[in-house]
């Protein structure tokens, strides 16, 4: 096996959708209709993820992120193309693939609802046939990374959303999988909990060299965790590179803030490739007196926003 945790080659996924007709007459027609149309959710996506990498997998709602994750986890079979997770096709042998992956869906707990966390851990240990020694080491590692004592004996149903997410992430790493898929792990959490979760993911990734595929809409997650991001939109991959490159994707954007004499701030976005910042300042100075100047790097969030809004090509 090479050093790749995940390889996707020209993966496509089509769904067959019934062409629905309007009104009562239409729905009766639909009952007998064979009139299907094909919708492509994922079009010709290729990528390679190295062992130990944390990848931010981004895209607007409905871009095909979930479909890709479902194919990577072996739940859906691609229409064409090839996926290799740990060197094997996930959908050919779902059970075997599951031994080597961990999955967390931000809004859906996969733990036993009424059981205390420690009992869920023990059941997972048996389910994944984790040797007792490895299991104990993992729990020790958890202890060193987060304060798990308060939640260990609490039933999942009594936990706060933050504690539940934390538990789900710990559960996903318990069998020391090669890849963990995190789908919006910080959704709905407060700022300090988000920080805790991010630190935990970083710590686990570092200690166990686990590959992490992270989908999120929170750019804070991306900035804190990922060096490389992949963006898809309308089912196609539109970006695959480091975050630093992303910032110069449209040219070198900077935000210039000027404080004017009447104590108001004026803000403008400047592309340094086409415009010189100094020129802009000089120009402004001719009109009004400037009392303060700030030049800000463009945030990842702003770049992503521009990409989603369709300024790509």
């Amino acid at each position, binding site marked *: 096996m090479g050093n790749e945790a995940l390889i996707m080659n020209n993966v496509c996924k089509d769904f067959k959708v019934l062409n629905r007709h309007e009104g009562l007459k239409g729905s009766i027609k639909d009952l007998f209709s064979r009139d299907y149309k094909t919708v492509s959710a994922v079009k010709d996506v290729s990528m390679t993820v190295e062992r130990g990498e944390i990848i931010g997998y981004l895209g607007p709602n409905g871009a095909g992120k979930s479909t890709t994750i479902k194919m990577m986890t072996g*739940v859906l079979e691609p229409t064409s193309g090839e996926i290799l997770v740990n060197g094997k096709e996930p959908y050919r042998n779902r*059970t*075997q693939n599951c031994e080597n992956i961990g999955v967390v869906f931000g809004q859906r707990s996969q733990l036993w609802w009424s059981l205390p966390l420690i009992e869920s851990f023990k059941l997972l240990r048996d389910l994944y*046939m984790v040797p007792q020694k490895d299991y104990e080491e993992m729990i020790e590692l958890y202890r060193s990374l987060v304060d798990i004592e308060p939640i260990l004996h609490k039933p999942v149903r009594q936990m706060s959303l933050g504690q539940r997410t934390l538990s789900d992430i710990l559960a996903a790493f318990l069998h020391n999988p090669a890849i963990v898929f995190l789908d919006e792990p910080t959704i709905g959490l407060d700022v300090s909990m988000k920080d805790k979760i991010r630190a935990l993911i970083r710590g686990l990734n570092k200690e166990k060299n686990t590959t992490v595929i992270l989908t999120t809409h929170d750019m804070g997650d991306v900035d804190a965790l990922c060096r490389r991001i992949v963006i898809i939109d309308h089912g196609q991959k539109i970006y695959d590179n480091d975050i630093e490159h992303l910032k110069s994707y449209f040219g070198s954007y900077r935000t210039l803030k000027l404080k004017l004499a009447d104590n108001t701030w004026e803000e403008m976005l400047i592309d340094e490739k086409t415009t010189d910042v100094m020129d802009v300042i000089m120009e402004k100075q001719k009109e009004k007196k400037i009392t303060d100047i700030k030049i800000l790097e463009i945030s990842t969030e702003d770049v992503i926003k521009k990409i989603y809004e369709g300024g790509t090509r």
Partner: protein
Amino acid sequence: MRKRGLKFYLSIYRKILIQDLKSKMSYRADFVISTFGMIMTNLAGFITFMILFHNFPTINGWDYYHMLFLYGFSLVALTPVQCFFDNNWNLRFMVQTGDFIKYCFRPVNVFFYFMSEVFDVKGLGQLAFGIGTIVYAWIHIGLEVNVLIILKLILFLFTASLFMIAIMNFAAATCFWLKGSGYVMVIMFRFKDFAKYPSSIFQGVFKVIFTFIIPIAFIAYYPSLVILEPGNVPLLSWLSPLIGLLFFFASYKFWMLGVRRYDFTGS
């Protein structure tokens, strides 16, 4: 690669069951109320049965104690579906909301993992009630007691239970294709009430339907004939273990086909 065989699955099921019972007991009020409800349900069913027999001393040649035996037999045969496969009732909600996907991320059989999540204690009362009824009817009919006949009883109770499990599997799995699959389940669940009557009361089309299409006649009638009328057992009674296994296997395959076909829409 380590194998996950029958032993593995049994031990996992046992562990989940113990944890589940422990947590159920910790909700004391809930436990007491559901136990009470279970006793009342069985009592009500029994009283209906008594009233019916007060007015019709025999049904199609079956007297009170034979009917009672059939009733007890059906209660016991319907216990496993109640105890071990009750999560089928939640399937359509999980499929609709997309929560079902979580069962696909564990390195174990999806059907097993899904069913293992719920163990319904209410079934145990039904079991006790059913066994009591069988014993009571047994003594009054004056059937003999020996090892062979007890083994036969257990075997045929087991196979009878497979039929109801299979019917509910089929009914529940329709949710992978249909939106209004709740009705299918409710209708099938209602049909089980016919199981406690001798199928000889059904004529023509109904007999065919209840034997071959929705095989509730196999839940009590055919298998219990082996015990009740040892001298005159129809072929279908002897075949019922085999038919039961095949039918259960077909329902399992149908259920799993639904899982594979379902496209897990929504994120």
